[in-house]
């Protein structure tokens, strides 16, 4: 077991425990803070997976902006915990069933190695394969000379330029929608 693997499992345990606490706390503020803790653990894992830029964005946007929005709304509404917080048994049966299916999926995932996955992707028909100009199709190895942000910026502003511009329209629509919805009188 290398040091990276040990650190990974520490972060993984941290993420799972925080997520469990997040879904079991009665107080929404405690729930939100445990979710922030999960997001920090995930940011750590992103660094281990060579995605430093995503890790930084995760902390800034998710743990920072989005969760502050949640906490702000919780405090604005000033509600006590919902009196009977938990759903009754049909919801539980469904929830445990779905979680069971996901765990079964997890077990089948263990059969995959990176090599097998790469082989299956390389035999996909061309219509399904991801365009070759985005990445060379081989297993990425070693740090890129363009740096952490450069590797992301190049495809973002070339191959994905139109989606990138469309997200700005989406954000504008969301801003206007949020203002209109939250107004006292519609």
């Amino acid at each position, binding site marked *: 077991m290398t040091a990276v693997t040990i650190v990974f499992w520490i972060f993984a345990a941290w993420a799972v425990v925080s997520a469990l606490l997040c*879904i079991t706390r009665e107080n929404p503020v405690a729930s939100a803070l445990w*979710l922030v803790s999960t997001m920090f653990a*995930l940011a750590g894992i992103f660094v281990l997976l060579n995605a430093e830029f995503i890790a930084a964005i995760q902390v800034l946007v998710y743990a920072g902006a989005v969760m502050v*929005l949640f906490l702000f709304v919780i405090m604005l509404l000033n509600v006590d915990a919902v009196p009977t917080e938990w759903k009754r048994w049909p919801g539980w049966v469904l929830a445990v069933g*779905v979680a069971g299916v996901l765990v079964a999926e997890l077990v089948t995932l263990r059969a995959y190695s990176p090599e097998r996955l790469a082989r299956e992707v390389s035999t996909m028909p061309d219509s399904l394969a991801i365009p070759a100009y985005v*990445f060379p199709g081989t297993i990425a190895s070693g740090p890129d000379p363009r740096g952490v942000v450069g590797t992301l910026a190049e495809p973002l502003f070339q191959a994905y330029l139109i989606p990138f511009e469309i997200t700005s329209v989406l954000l504008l629509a*969301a801003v206007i929608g949020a203002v209109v919805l939250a107004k006292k009188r519609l």
Partner: protein
Amino acid sequence: MLLGPSLALSAVLFALGMLGVLVRRNAIVVFMCVELMLNAVNLALVALSQLHGPSGQLMVFFVMTVAAAEAAVGLAIILAIFRHVQSVDLKQFNLLKG
């Protein structure tokens, strides 16, 4: 490579998020569990981008943008409904029920 463990962790976090969505009745907590599920999917995308180059991380970038927009609009909707029913209990959210 941490691909297998990352995908396993992603599945566990997604299952936990879904469990939260299905068993909680506080609308805001349900919303936070949706964010947890989005985070789990982000983890899977980042893990696979190790194998396939940066397009997975770009997808995460877009997922985060959509999640931020969704959080703003969703919380505004919860705020508007709260004004109507003075509660965030999902049991009370039955305005569209015939």
